[in-house]
């Protein structure tokens, strides 16, 4: 118990890099293409890290996400990691991930990452079909991805890739080729259903993926990944050889994490969340975060929503330890009904969504949330 408790107190650190060479048609994350802002941004970021209220905390995961961290100027990552290591007690065996895209996953990038102590790379592929890649504004080809992943494998044992299901013109062949090539080099893969976000070029184009089609592709990807030795551990995430993402698990387990950079969020693991401004220039001028407090109901609903995304599900004992009351006291009736109807499994006090209903989990989760 006490060991578990200390582990819980290890922070994750997320750093957002809001730069991309060009914006992808589906992406609603905060990123800009004006690289003249990179230097002032990194300076503001480093400044924020040094002034962090949580300075001195220990961390067992760091995640540099974006945007495209690999498009930063040479030396930027070093500045960031120097600041992080100066201010935080980053474990020797911490998981340290940097995101990148194939077009900027260069030898120099890999080199700098290694020098910074990075031990995990996450690279977007999205589709193995060049037509599809072009259609959504990706600026790399499938060949470039293969070249980049081989290069990265020379430096890093642990590489992850993501694909998106439901892109315009995407076929099931595309999905199987993506899954196979990723299986060849990576032990971790994220498989996302396309969500068309307001304000993106894809949304403005009026494109809407067909739900049944996406569900077919998902089933197809799942089956293929199983054959390739992967196990699903969250609805969109698959791993083999013990390569689950420690950092992402923190989110789904409601553990604490610190966020730096524009649009980054943080959580103290209890009642406090914060978020940074979405505006890069405003962040550079003043890198402050906005705090907001969770109610008991917020905490309950977040926990249910996030834990049930995972194959591990929600442990009733862990729930009681965290909240001080029993889950069944609050939602026992709905839970029993969902179990009786076969939508939810209860395996010795571990409650999880039945595997075949993972892709339709929202309605089930809603029933277990508080009003």
């Amino acid at each position: 118990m006490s060991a578990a408790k200390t582990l819980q107190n290890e922070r994750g650190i997320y750093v957002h890099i809001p730069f991309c060479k060009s914006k992808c048609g589906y992406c609603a994350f905060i990123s800009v293409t004006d690289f003249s802002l990179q230097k002032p941004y990194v300076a503001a970021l480093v400044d924020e890290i040094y002034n962090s209220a949580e300075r001195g905390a220990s961390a067992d995961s760091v995640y540099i996400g974006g945007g495209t961290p690999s498009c930063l100027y040479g030396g930027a990552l070093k500045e960031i990691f120097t600041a992080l290591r100066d201010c935080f007690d980053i474990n020797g065996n911490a998981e340290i991930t940097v995101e990148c895209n194939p077009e900027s996953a260069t030898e120099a990038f890999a080199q700098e990452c290694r020098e910074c102590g990075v031990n995990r790379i996450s690279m977007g592929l999205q589709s193995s079909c060049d037509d599809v890649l072009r259609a959504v504004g990706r600026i790399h080809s499938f060949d470039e991805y293969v070249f980049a992943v081989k290069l990265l494998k020379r430096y890093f044992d642990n590489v992850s890739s993501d694909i998106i299901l439901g892109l315009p013109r995407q076929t099931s062949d595309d999905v199987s080729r993506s899954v196979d090539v990723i299986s060849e080099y990576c032990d971790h893969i994220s498989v996302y259903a396309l969500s068309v976000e307001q304000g993106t070029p894809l949304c403005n184009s009026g494109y809407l993926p067909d739900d049944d089609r996406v569900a077919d592709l998902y089933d197809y990807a799942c089956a293929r990944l199983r054959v390739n030795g992967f196990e699903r551990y969250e609805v969109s995430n698959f791993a083999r050889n013990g390569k689950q993402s420690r950092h992402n698990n923190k989110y789904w387990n409601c553990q604490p994490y610190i966020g730096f950079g524009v649009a980054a969020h943080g959580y103290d693991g209890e009642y406090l969340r914060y978020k940074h401004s979405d505006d890069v220039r405003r962040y550079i001028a003043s890198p402050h975060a906005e705090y907001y407090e969770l109610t008991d109901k917020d905490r309950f609903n977040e926990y249910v929503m996030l834990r049930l995304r995972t194959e591990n599900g929600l442990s009733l004992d862990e729930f009681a330890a965290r909240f001080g009351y029993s889950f069944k006291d609050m939602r026992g009736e709905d839970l029993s009904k969902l179990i009786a109807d076969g939508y939810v499994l209860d395996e010795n006090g571990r409650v999880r969504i039945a595997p075949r209903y993972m892709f339709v989990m929202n309605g089930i989760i809603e029933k277990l949330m508080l009003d």
Partner: protein
Amino acid sequence: MDRQKFIRNFCIIAHIDHGKSTLADRLMESTATLTKRELSAQMLDSMDIERERGITIKLTPVRMFYEYNGDRYTFNLIDTPGHVDFTYEVSRSLAACEGAVLVVDSAQGVEAQTLANVYLALDNNLEIVPVINKIDLPAARPDEVKKEIEDIIGLPADDAPCISAKEGINIDDVLRAIAEKVPPPSGDVSKPLKALIFDSYYDNYKGAVCLIRVVDGAVKAGDKIMMMANGKTYDVTEVGVFQPKPVAVGDLIAGDVGYLCASIKSIADTAPGDTITFAENPTPEPCPGYKKVKPVVYCGIYPADGSRYGDLKDALERLKLNDASLFYEPETSTALGFGFRCGFLGLLHMEIIEERLEREFDLDIITTSPGVVYKVYTANNMVEVTNPSNLPPTGEIERMEEPVVTASIYTPPEYIGPIMELCQDKRGEYINMTYIEKTRVLLTYTMPLNEIVYDFFDGLKSRSRGYASFDYEQAGYRASDLVKLDIMLNGDICDALSIIVHREKAYSRGRAMAEKLKEVIPRKLFEIPIQAAIGGKVIARETIKAMRKDVLAKCYGGDVTRKKKLLEKQKEGKKRMRQFGTVEIPSEAFMSVLKLDNEKK
């Protein structure tokens, strides 16, 4: 008395969109009753719905002054609704007038509703002043329209003012024509008070406010009055006129139109058609009253959120205060819970009530398919059925009768074919076809009202590209082969979706309803069969397939809060759906089934 000689009481008759309210605004502007600044477009239509739809529902009188040949005239304009549903309101306002301005669109000519109201005005012996409007339009053909008025209505229209109410052209010609042609009121100021209530509304401070036309005598604050219908007496607290805001005046004399307040607590005591007289020294004869109107269209109205039943009840009570023609009584449905069966004068009336419930009372409501009043004969009885659920068991029914109407449709000749097809399809019986002129034809049909209630307007508009106009009057009952069509969801009959239809229509309606429901009922984790059935025999079936994808794609640190809110909102939304057995039905489903697009078939 001298003043009476210069009073002109008139209303404006026009087909919808022919410019009645705009002309009323111009008259007020030209007589300086209102300045341009005060004139938010279409002053008289004070309800939001009236202004938005460009229709008039309630009667609104307004007093104006007009100087002509050195004399000062008092003009009382009594605005009237133009739509067929409100014929009874029209007849009320006509009783308070000596003249009617007939506005005809110079591009479109005489239309169905115009004609019906002109006949009403002629029946009431009103002097009719024709006015040709919209002469600024490129398609204007004032001379032809004048001829139309002469040919169809039989009114001389040679010297009819040709105006544009919108552009303010020749408005003074209209004022002059009113002064010259409309006769002054003829009442006797020296006789005992005799005043006709032609409308009333409730004011929180003043109590019931009676809109009156003084026929004989005079009335002022302090007078002791009596309602002739029930003999109740009151002390008059205020009399006044509308300019167009209410303004108190010293007295109202024979021929005047205005309002009267007397601390009357209930609007029920100020029924339109009643006569007001003095408590002592009453008039010997009351004014002829109005006949009570009976609803012809019925539907169930339920709160979308069952817990707001009380609010819905209060709202209906409040609406009823100012709308005596609205009928309602409580009913229950297994699918929708507690609600009301409501009766309306027609479809527009129904739509307006629905809209007012939603807007003015902030209620989300579910309405069931509109139906009519069927006469159902059993071995030893006849019942009037307004709710399909109350239909006696099939075995007991000997025969059924449905209401029919005489429908008059005006259309350019090129649409005759499609319109006749539509009427046939709606079980209409052809009566007559008359060429009014080269470009316009009057088609007359006898049609079942329940076919008109079901998307006839939309069909007519789409088949004539909006050029056909339509009016109807009730024409009694006739025997008909009617059946009750039920909808079963996951095997259970959903009573709120049951309708009574002609046997020949049952299959296509059932099919269309099942298809529509398939579109609007959200997919669930399991398959849901939708069946349409007559007396247990399934005639159409659709299946809502099980849901395949309902998942938040990505969920990491950044968007936990946003995604949680999304799910909470969805959960909240589902609560507003109707739980019917294992199936949740969104409120819109009920509505969309009524608004089935007939063209898509």
